[in-house]
C-alpha cells in the first residue's frame, strides 16, 4: 500500500532523515514514534508530496509521490501537525472547498460534506467561523477535511497533541473507527496511544529507523527476562527467602514492606510455583502479577541503545 524506499532528506547540510525504508500494508495502522526532531514530520511531508525527497522513493497505492504526485495525493488524507485551518472560513464552506479541491464530483458533494459533518459530530458548529472553534472541534474539522473524499490512506501527524484528556479520548475513538479498511500512519510521542491504536510501530531516532515491528514482538524482543511483582500481607523477609529458593528466579528485591520485585527467566511462567510455595508456608498472598514492559521502556531502551556508541 505504502512503500518507502531508501528515503533521505537533507535541508542544506543538515540531514533530517537518512535511508528510511519500510512498508505499510493495506488496512494496517502504523504508529510512527520518535522524539521531537527525529524526522517524523519530514517523512510524512514527503509521503504526502508536500516536498520531494533528496533521494529515495515513496509510492502510495503504486503511485510514485513525485512522478505521479496528483494521483498519489488523491489517495491520501493528511492531517498536518497542529491542524492548520483557515480561521476566517466557516466550517461548512471550508469543507466544501476541500471537497472541490480534492475533486469530489458535484453530484456527491453535498452528501459527502454532510456525511463527514455527521461522522465527526460537527452538526452544531457547521456554520461557525473556524477561528472561534475549540481545539477539539478544530481537530475534528482537520480529520473531516482529510476524509472528505474517502481516501484509502490516512496520514495523521500528532493528532492528539494539545487536547484535553476527554478530547484525546474522543479523537482516539474516531481514529479507531476509521481504521479497518484504511491504511493509517500516525505519528505520536504519546506512547500508550500508539500501543492502543496501532498494529505495528516504527521507532525513528535521529533520522533513522531504529526498530519496526508489531508492538507485542517488540516487547518480546527486548525483554530478556520477565518481571513479577508479588504482594504479601506480612512476613516479607520469609517470603523473600522462599522466592529466592525457587528454580529459575534470577533476583529478588523488596521495594517496601509488602512488595517483592522478582526477575525470572523469560521462557517459563513461574507464578504458579511461587504462589504455591508462599501459600504453603502460610504467608498471606495478596497479589502476584507479571509486569509487561511498557512501550515507554522499549522506546527509551531503543533510543539509548542507539545513542550508546555516539556517547
Amino acid at each position, binding site marked *: 500500500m505504502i512503500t518507502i524506499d531508501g528515503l533521505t532528506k537533507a535541508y542544506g547540510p543538515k540531514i533530517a532523515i537518512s535511508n528510511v525504508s519500510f512498508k505499510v500494508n493495506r488496512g494496517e495502522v502504523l504508529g510512527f514514534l520518535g522524539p521531537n526532531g527525529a524526522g517524523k514530520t519530514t517523512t510524512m511531508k514527503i509521503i504526502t508530496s508536500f516536498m*520531494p525527497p533528496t533521494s529515495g522513493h515513496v509510492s502510495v497505492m503504486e503511485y510514485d509521490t513525485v512522478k505521479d504526485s496528483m494521483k498519489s495525493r488523491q489517495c491520501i488524507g493528511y492531517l498536518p*501537525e497542529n491542524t492548520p485551518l483557515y480561521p476566517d472560513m466557516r466550517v461548512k464552506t471550508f469543507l466544501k472547498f476541500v471537497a472541490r479541491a480534492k475533486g469530489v464530483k458535484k453530484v456527491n458533494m453535498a452528501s459527502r460534506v454532510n456525511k463527514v459533518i455527521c461522522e465527526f459530530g460537527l452538526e452544531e458548529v457547521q456554520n461557525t467561523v473556524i477561528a472561534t472553534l475549540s481545539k477539539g472541534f478544530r481537530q475534528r474539522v482537520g480529520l473531516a477535511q482529510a476524509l472528505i473524499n474517502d481516501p484509502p490512506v490516512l496520514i495523521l501527524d500528532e493528532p492528539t497533541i494539545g487536547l484535553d484528556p476527554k478530547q484525546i479520548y474522543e479523537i482516539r475513538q474516531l481514529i479507531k473507527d476509521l481504521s479497518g479498511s484504511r491504511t493509517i500512519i500516525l505519528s505520536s510521542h504519546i506512547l500508550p496511544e500508539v500501543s492502543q491504536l496501532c498494529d505495528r510501530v516504527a521507532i525513528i531516532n535521529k533520522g533513522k529507523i531504529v526498530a519496526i515491528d508489531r508492538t507485542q514482538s517488540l516487547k518480546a524482543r527486548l525483554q530478556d527476562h520477565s518481571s513479577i511483582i508479588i504482594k504479601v500481607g506480612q512476613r516479607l523477609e520469609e517470603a523473600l527467602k522462599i522466592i529466592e529458593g525457587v528454580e529459575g528466579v534470577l533476583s529478588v528485591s523488596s521495594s517496601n514492606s509488602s512488595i517483592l520485585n522478582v526477575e525470572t527467566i523469560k521462557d517459563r511462567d513461574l507464578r504458579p510455583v511461587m504462589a504455591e510455595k508462599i501459600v504453603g508456608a502460610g504467608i498471606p498472598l495478596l497479589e502476584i502479577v507479571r509486569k509487561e514492559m511498557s512501550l515507554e521502556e522499549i522506546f527509551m531502551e531503543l533510543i539509548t541503545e542507539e545513542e550508546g556508541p555516539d556517547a
Partner: protein
Amino acid sequence: MRSVYFKELSIYFSSPIFYVIASIFICISGIFFYNAMVYVSLLATKIAQYQMETGVDMNEVLLRPVFSDMSMLIVFIVPIISMRLYAEESSLGTIELLFTYPLSDLSVLVAKYLAGLTVLFCILAITSVLMALMAVIAVPDWGVVFSSYIGLVLMGGAILSLGVFASSLTKNQIIAAALTLGLVLGFWVIGWFAGAVPNTAASEFLQEISLISHLSRFLKGMVTIKDIVFYVCFSVFFLALTLRILDSHRWRG
C-alpha cells in the same frame, strides 16, 4: 482551480479586508472626483463670465485627473490585496493543506491571482457610480472612460503579479506589502531616470518598463496592443517567477 478561486474570494468577502479597502478607495476617489468637479464648474463659470468661445474639454479637466488619481490609489491598495495570498498560507501552515491536495502549483497560483484581480475589479466597478453621477450633468466620453478602466485593470493586474511574487517570498504579510510597494514604486519612477541616461537604447528601455508610461495612453482613450502586451507580459513574468520561488521553497523544505 475553481475551488481555490472561490476559497480566496470567500476569505476576501467574509473578512473585513475587502470592505475596508473598498471603502477607503471609494471615499478617496470620491474626494478627488469632487475636487475635479468643483474645478470644472469653476472653469465653466469663468468661461460663461468672459463669454469665451472655447468649450471645456471634459476629458482633459475631469476624466484624466480622476483616473490618474485612481491609478495612484491602486498603487497603494493592490499590495494590501495581494499581501495575504501566499504569506498568510505560510504563516497559518495551511500551505501544507493546499500543497498536498491534488492541485498543481500553477492552478493554485492562477486561482489566487484571478481572485485578487476580481477583488480589484469589484472595487473599480463601484467607482462607476461616479461616472453615472457625471453622466447626469454632462455625457462623458464613454470611450475614454472604458479605455481608462481597461488601463487601470491591466496596470492593477501587473501590480498584483508583483504582489503575489512578494507574498510568496515571506511568511509576514507586512513585509510582503512593503516589498510590493517598493517594487511598484521602483517600476513607477524608473521612467524618470530615462532622461538622465545618455544611451538612447537604455533610456528607451527604462521608459518602456515603467508601469506609469504605459497607462498614459489608456487615459487618453487609446487602447494599443503594445501597452496591453506590456502589462500582460509583465504579469506573466512575475507569476512565472513566483512559480519558481514556490518550487524552490519545496526543495528546501
